[in-house]
């Protein structure tokens, strides 16, 4: 492991890569702060830039943008009660009330220290967990990988929240369908190309991500413009932040919360599909229960614990979501799905072999997380009063710029004008689906895993003489598939079970 850390340090600490971490953190904070634009859009916008770099530098840049964007999202949650992403919604519960009390600077500092601690603890746990899991997964066969991908997809759907499981499952299937467009890799047969040469290579991953996130988010902002009052609020918030000092008592109050939430956040982040949003809400709820009746009442009114818990947990979860991506090649979240796509674009296959074949990428990502978190704290925190000015940039300038960056981001990779038109079609579809409240992240996950899933299933069948028996004959494959089925159906059946229990109790009381 020490050797690995040294490899990571030598790769991540080159002046060039350090520069990418600094730039990534700043750009990520800047984009993440814009209401409506989250880490997925931020990373998507960075892919064209990262494509021109070597793999380690590219992934370092995207990872830095990732935690920068999470930090930026917290900033807009605290200052204007407009979370850029779902994972920072819980941050606004206590962060915004603190800002309203004139303690915006303090709230930002608490968020920054909590994010830093969550990120660092998460990176230490990643350091231990990732190589271990990578070694274990070396014994996996293609049948197990197929089962793992099924698990990854079902987990995403299962964690979609009550009432949304079917929608998330359907969107995953749509993503898988889109992944089948183009020439079949093994047999060279054209599928769903509609006779168009431009579709022979399939739908570009970057195009799909840019259209469904960056472009459609900007179009949604144009569709539903903000009123004058919220604009005024943004200007005021960015102009006056107050002191950023934290008292000793507050540090004492935060410390145990940070410890608990880091571990909780990391563990939730490792689970495919769970991600930072669930981690932040779970940490918030846990701390509220642990705070006792008196301190618990302060939650939602500017509690230090209520702010520290979700901030720590979402950063630790963001780090944790790298574990399945780096070791199994299965993204734990929509954001890591985009990074996985970028790695594949470099010709690198994430999974257990990454640890052996590309140790510089594997370790550089882990080490860059520490570096990134330090930079976020040392550089971004003092710069926040200036970065917050972005909230004052009129949206009439900002939105066309986002559209411009999204379009040229895709065009610069392919130099094909057909891609611009296809992007517009996908963006229209994404806007419609957003208006109808259908989740888009599962679609991206399905799209990324589709090709790999088909490939592993094909290979498994080839090895087993065209027999599907591997699904139940190989113990590991069967176990993973059973877990996948349970992951999918248990959350669906839980509400029915609790309803049945309630009815049974009522009948018992009546009888």
């Amino acid at each position, binding site marked *: 492991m020490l050797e690995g850390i040294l490899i990571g340090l030598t790769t991540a600490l080159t002046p060039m890569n350090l520069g990418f971490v600094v730039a990534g953190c700043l750009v990520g904070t800047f984009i993440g702060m814009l209401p409506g634009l989250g880490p997925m859009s931020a990373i998507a916008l960075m892919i064209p830039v990262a494509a021109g770099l070597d793999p380690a530098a590219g992934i370092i840049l995207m990872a830095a943008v990732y935690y920068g964007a999470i930090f930026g999202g917290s900033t807009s949650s605290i200052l204007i009660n407009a979370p850029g992403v779902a994972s920072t919604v819980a941050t606004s519960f206590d962060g915004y009330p603190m800002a309203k009390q004139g303690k915006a600077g303090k709230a930002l500092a608490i968020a920054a220290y909590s994010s830093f601690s969550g990120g660092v603890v998460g990176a230490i746990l990643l350091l231990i967990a990732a190589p271990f899991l990578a070694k274990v997964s070396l014994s996996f066969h293609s049948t197990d990988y197929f089962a793992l991908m099924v698990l990854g997809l079902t987990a995403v759907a299962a964690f979609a929240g009550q009432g949304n499981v*079917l929608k998330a499952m359907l969107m995953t299937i749509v993503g898988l369908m889109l992944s089948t467009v183009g020439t079949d890799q093994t047999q060279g047969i054209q599928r*769903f190309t509609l006779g168009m040469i431009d579709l022979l290579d399939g739908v570009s991953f970057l195009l799909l991500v840019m259209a469904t996130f960056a472009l459609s988010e900007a179009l949604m902002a144009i569709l539903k413009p903000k009123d004058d009052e919220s604009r005024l609020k943004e200007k005021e918030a960015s102009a006056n932040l107050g002191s950023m000092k934290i008292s000793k008592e507050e540090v004492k109050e935060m410390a145990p919360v940070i410890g608990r939430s880091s571990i909780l956040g990391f563990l939730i982040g490792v689970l495919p599909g769970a991600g930072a949003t669930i981690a932040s809400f779970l940490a918030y709820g846990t701390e509220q229960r642990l705070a006792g009746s008196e301190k618990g009442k302060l939650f939602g009114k500017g509690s230090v614990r209520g702010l520290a818990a979700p901030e720590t947990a979402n950063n630790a979860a963001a780090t944790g979501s790298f574990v399945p991506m780096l070791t199994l090649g299965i993204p734990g979240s929509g954001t890591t799905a985009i990074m996985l796509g970028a790695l594949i674009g470099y010709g690198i296959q994430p999974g257990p072999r990454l640890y052996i074949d590309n140790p510089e990428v594997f370790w550089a990502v882990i080490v860059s997380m520490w570096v990134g978190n330090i930079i976020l704290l040392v550089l971004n925190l003092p710069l926040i009063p200036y970065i917050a000015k972005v909230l004052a940039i009129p949206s009439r300038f900002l939105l066309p710029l986002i559209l411009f960056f999204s379009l040229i981001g895709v065009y610069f990779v392919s130099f094909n004008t057909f891609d611009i038109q296809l992007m517009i079609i996908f963006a229209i579809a994404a806007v419609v689906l957003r208006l109808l409240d259908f989740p888009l992240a599962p679609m991206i996950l399905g799209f990324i895993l589709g090709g790999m899933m088909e490939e592993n299933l094909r290979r498994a069948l080839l090895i087993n003489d065209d027999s599907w028996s591997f699904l139940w004959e190989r113990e590991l494959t069967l176990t993973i598939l059973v877990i996948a089925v349970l992951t999918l159906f248990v959350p669906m059946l839980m509400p029915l079970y609790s309803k049945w229990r309630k009815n049974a109790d009522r009948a018992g009381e009546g009888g």
Partner: protein
Amino acid sequence: MFFTNRRIGGLLLLAFCVTYAVLSQRIPLLPFQAQSAFHARTMPEVLAILGVGLSIAIVVLPSPKEFLDLSGKNWFTVIAFLALMSFYGVTIRPFGFILSSSILLGVGFWLLGERKAWLILAVSVPIAIAFWALMTLGLSVFLEPLPWFLRG
């Protein structure tokens, strides 16, 4: 009311999945491929069945009473932006990068309410030039800067 957000989405995706299912049957297969357990149609067929099944379930099962509210939204501006982006795709080659990008940005600023012509020009043109310079001079990615009638 039957047509909730969820059901409209379900119906739209059902149409997509049915189209996908129909097109999956047009994937050409050689006779020997059709006999194998896994061929180019296998995955699309499985996905089509799952997609159609799930979308029907979404349409048929009880749905929360959330309805699409189309009022109070800037539909015209969004449609204008879609047309503008499509125009950008068509003109980026003949008009060159600088002119087409300046038009995209300038018209975009105007569509969103900026009416000062000097400000529109002062922001859009330098950004387009800066980007062209960054790509061409900084990253050695050649982009035709000038429109067709000014090229040598």
